[in-house]
């Protein structure tokens, strides 16, 4: 009930609220039709089956009419039998067709949804990091879940009924007009009030339903707060006051609910009365027509039976309308997502990055979206096999620079080259093969530890994984887990410590075996035992690779070949540890602050000696 995420109020936005304008609806429909074009044969077939099934259904009263007029009235048992047998056959044919319809629609609809999921997700994954930083996670997830699930419901239950009810209504109207257009005109008098009432009912109940949801939300909040804060309530002896307050929201929920009951207590009587009034009309006027030989008794009977086929569809269509609208709204949101262009595209004629080479950041200026520049004219040459540490205060632009190096973003001005190739001209595949980013927190996915390591290279064999683990000297460490590398990682790795998650992340990188490694060093402290293991593994991982590391620890910076001090979006200083210390510039003062900071008592100072 209390699902997080979603936008809007405490209990999320409600699909019922999301309505499409007429134009939007038309656009969505047109696009949907385009998407469905490859399946038009299957859809045509399903539609054909549906029409045939509806025809079988509608044949019933007509056969009753035939039986009465030509069997009973004429005293002809053979005709009666003929009508009954035909009815029986059509009943079974109709059932068989109904079965086929459900299967056919499910096949088309569910396959469509599968492809839609696939397509939307693939597009989502191809989008640049800027998109993910802009959009709240919850909203993106709900695109792929609740929005598509809304359509799942439509496909599973609603779609067949929606079309079928429409067909039944149209079919019944056609048939009664064919039987006797005069009596049909009188019969149809009762349909418009039901249509209007159904429309009113749908609107009113939607409105009231939203209020019910809000009231439930309010009441649940009070309830939840009353339970979570029960100790405080008792400590201050305020039980009665809090209970009184709960009564307020509880009664508000009752009132909101009762309003929906009132609405349906008005609607259903009208619908039922219309049905009976229809019967009265058909009997009264039909009887009058019979005595004037305008219609037969059988026709009157058939009309009475068809009445059901006029009323039910109107009611059901009105209710299904919500479901259809929700799905339309969901589709529109999905189309919007599909239309979002990716900021990191592969250029036509892109080339593979060379296996090795220097990294050159040349006069790069960059800012997020339309914001002020975060990096200003930064140039940074990194030699093959060199280890460069980026240091600087929070917000100076270190992380941004690292993201540009991995082409998570493209620079506004200037360029980033690897082995002489501008990253924007490189194939995305070779780019991700050569350059790997190890994020600050070891993020784990569902699956085993081994699956998570294989994340670095999907084609790797078990042996490759073992080798990567061994290369970092982590074999024993992972074997110590409950089931070694085959230990299931649950709930984003809550079973593993932060340090162990970091180790998995490093093994991942080792398996990916990149030329250039971009590291965002973890800031949080790990338990001392793991801390050392991480250090060792990291050292081995960096061996023989070009490394750009965002350093949060003094030791990491000091150990790098060269240090780049980023301050206020510019490259303030660049050189070796010793060079920068003697220069007595920003690095020297940062260094001094670092040594003096109280939190460095455990790691920083010890490492300095």
């Amino acid at each position, binding site marked *: 009930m209390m699902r997080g995420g979603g936008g809007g109020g405490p209990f999320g936005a409600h699909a019922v609220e999301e309505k499409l304008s007429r134009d939007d609806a038309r656009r969505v429909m047109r696009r949907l039709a385009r998407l469905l074009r490859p399946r038009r044969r299957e859809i045509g077939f399903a539609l054909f089956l549906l029409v045939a099934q509806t025809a079988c259904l509608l044949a019933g009263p007509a056969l*009753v009419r035939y039986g009465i007029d030509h069997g009973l009235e004429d005293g002809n048992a053979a005709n009666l039998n003929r009508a009954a047998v035909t009815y029986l056959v059509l009943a079974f044919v109709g*059932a068989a067709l109904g079965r086929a319809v459900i299967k056919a629609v499910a096949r088309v609809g569910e396959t469509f949804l599968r492809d839609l999921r696939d397509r939307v997700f693939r597009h989502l994954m191809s989008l640049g990091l800027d998109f993910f930083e802009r959009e709240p996670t919850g909203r993106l997830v709900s695109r792929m879940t609740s929005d598509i699930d809304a359509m799942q419901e439509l496909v599973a239950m609603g779609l067949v009924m929606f079309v079928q009810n429409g067909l039944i209504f149209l079919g019944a109207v056609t048939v009664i007009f064919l039987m006797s257009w005069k009596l049909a005109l009188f019969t149809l008098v009762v349909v418009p009030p039901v249509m209007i009432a159904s429309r009113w009912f749908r609107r009113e109940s939607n409105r009231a339903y939203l209020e019910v949801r809000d009231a439930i939300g309010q009441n649940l909040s009070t309830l939840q707060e009353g339970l979570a804060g029960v100790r405080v309530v008792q400590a201050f002896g305020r039980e009665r006051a809090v209970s009184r307050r709960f009564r307020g929201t509880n009664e508000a929920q009752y009132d909101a609910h009762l309003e929906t009951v009132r609405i*349906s207590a008005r609607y259903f009587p009208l619908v039922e009365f219309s049905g009976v009034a229809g019967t009265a009309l058909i009997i009264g006027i039909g009887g009058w027509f019979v005595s004037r030989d305008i219609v037969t008794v059988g026709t009157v009977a058939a009309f009475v039976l068809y009445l059901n086929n006029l009323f039910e569809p109107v009611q059901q269509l009105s209710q299904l309308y919500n479901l259809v609208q929700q799905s339309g709204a969901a589709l529109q949101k999905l189309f919007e997502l599909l239309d979002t262009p990716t900021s990191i595209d592969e250029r036509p004629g892109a080339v593979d990055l060379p296996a090795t080479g220097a990294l050159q950041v040349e006069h790069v200026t960059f800012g997020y979206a339309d914001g002020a520049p975060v990096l200003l004219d930064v140039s940074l040459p990194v030699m093959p096999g060199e280890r460069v540490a980026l240091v600087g205060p929070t917000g100076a632009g270190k992380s941004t620079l690292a993201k540009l190096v991995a082409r998570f973003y493209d620079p506004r001005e200037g360029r980033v080259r690897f082995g002489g190739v501008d990253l924007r001209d490189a194939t995305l595949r070779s780019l991700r093969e050569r350059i790997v980013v190890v994020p600050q927190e070891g993020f784990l996915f569902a699956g085993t530890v081994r699956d998570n390591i294989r994340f670095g290279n999907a084609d790797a064999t078990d042996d490759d994984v073992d080798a990567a683990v061994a290369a970092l000297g982590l074999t024993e460490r992972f074997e110590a887990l409950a089931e070694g590398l085959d230990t299931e990682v649950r709930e984003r790795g809550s079973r593993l410590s932060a340090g162990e998650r970091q180790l998995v992340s490093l093994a991942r990188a080792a398996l990916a075996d990149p030329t250039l490694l971009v590291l965002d060093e973890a800031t949080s402290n790990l338990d001392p035992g793991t801390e050392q293991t991480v250090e060792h593994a990291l050292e081995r991982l960096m061996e023989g690779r070009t490394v750009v590391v965002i350093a949060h620890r003094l030791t990491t910076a000091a150990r790098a070949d060269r240090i780049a001090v980023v301050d206020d979006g510019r490259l303030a200083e660049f050189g070796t540890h010793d060079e920068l210390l003697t220069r007595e510039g920003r690095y020297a003062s940062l260094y001094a602050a670092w040594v003096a900071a109280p939190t460095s008592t455990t790691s920083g100072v010890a490492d300095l000696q």
Partner: protein
Amino acid sequence: MPPAEPPEPDKPGVDESGVDEPSGVDEPDVDQPDVDQPDVDREARRAGWRLMGETIRPQRWWVVTGVVAGLLWTGARVTVPLLAAGAIDNGILEGDEGTVVRYAIAIAIVGIVQAVCTGLRRYSAFRLSLRVTTNLRERLFTHLQRLHFAFHDEAQTGQLMARANSDLQQVQVVVVLLPLAAASLLTMLAVLVIILVKSLGLAVLVLVTLPFLNIAATRFTRRIQPVSLELQEELADLSGVVEESVAGVRAVKGFGAERLQAARLRHEADSVLDRALAAARLRAGFLPLVDLLPTLSLVAILWYGGHQVLNGDLELGYLVAFNSYVLMLIWPLRMMGMLLAQASRSSAAAGRVHEVLATEPAIVDVTGARTLPDGPGEIRFEGVRFSYGGVGGPPVLDGLDLVVRGGEAVALVGATGSGKTTVARLVPRFYDVDDGRVLLDGVDVRAVKVRTLRRSVGIVFEDTFLFSDSVRENIAFADPEAPLDEVERAARLAGADGFVANLPDGYDTVIGEHGFSLSGGQRQRLAIARAVLADPRVLILDDATSSVDPTKEHEIRSALREVMADRTTLIIAHRPATIALADRVVLLEGGRVVAEGRHEELLESSLRYRAVLAQAEAEADAVTAGTRADG
């Protein structure tokens, strides 16, 4: 003939909170089975029924109204086809226009009765069920507010929420269904009697096919439930992949694993497709049957009834009427199976609610409980033994003796699990001691009215809880009538006036989940203000300044001195500066006092004291380091 019964309350649609499917979707209820609910035995079910019964009793007039309206409704409904039959047989076939018109008018009049009654019976049924659940929910909440700490320690908020929410929804569904089902069953009975009376052979033919509807519906529900559960699971797996890919997008991009994740999603999407198609196959087997079975009855009526008409054993009008009757039977038959399943689910739910309501509050006034006499606020623990699991659990306090003189400020210091918080919680009698006694101003706290005791003891909990209300309402929680200057004074004494003044709406700023969010230290200061406003005889600060930024703590400390001046104070703290507020320090270990004296004395004399403080400092540092590393 009237249309088949409009969407009935199995999917009350708009009338029902938890159900958003459109009503009338032609499928029996395939609710999730109560997988995560503890098994409820028969006794609990019976208790559930009793609870529903006793809650319904005060609403009995609505039951009567609903049932009477249902009776009339049934009568009207069943009469319409009879009148139509009469019109055909006596009017149309005879060519008697006057009779036809009279019958038509009669039908319309009966239609009005039917319409009025259907409105009334639905209204009564839903109103009844809403009233019942609303009352039960209030009773549950009020009861939970009275239940002792030990109960809430055990119970999970989520579970209790489920009692008040989803369980009561189940109750609501069955209470709606009962009167409505009564009318439906009555309809069924009336129809059967009419068919039986008019044509025994036809009755047999109709009855042979229709019960299969019930059987098929039950079977279908049983078979589709596991499949839709599997489908739900697959959907959950799929959304798991989406969630982690979005949350871990940096890892995905960093390792170029977009394709890998896309393949995983495709795999999950295929599984969803597979299960969805399996569910569709089941539906394809069932739904056409729902249409087929009544149609077979209609065929039987046309054929057998037709021959009876030819033989002169049946009037033509009844042949038409029987068609209507068959349609009237569909609903009640399908509903019966559903009702049984729902009744079992609902009584189990009501049983769980009953279980909570049957739990007696453990901390209540004893007979002859007195108000607390005036006094300086002297606290005395005499040989107190206490364990959270009741007598026999691992002891937390093990023969504790402690005296805090009126007006004195004592700091309780000890390692985690030493019993400091327990001491704090025994004074306002959140728990009762297993052995020994706790005295406040010479009176055993168990002999005092709970309400007066707790009004005299103000406590600031370690984990601050504030309500989603304005700052002012939060501070004035103990006394909502308190004038603003008192609220401001309390805020000032808690060192909260500074930041409150800077809030967008000052004291009227709404805070909490849906309001302005405050830092941990700010929240703690409001909690202190709340306790100060109550002006208690004894003030207990349980680690109440732990989240306050050390650089700001001195502001509070001077104010706290003023607060503590004329009352007894128990302080649980780790920071030496906070401990220094106390006149005396008591070091607890293993549920006993192991050392006491002034802070400086203990620092000098007690190795254990130094160790405890050092340990606490290390832990605190780890926490602040963690919170600082957010850049």
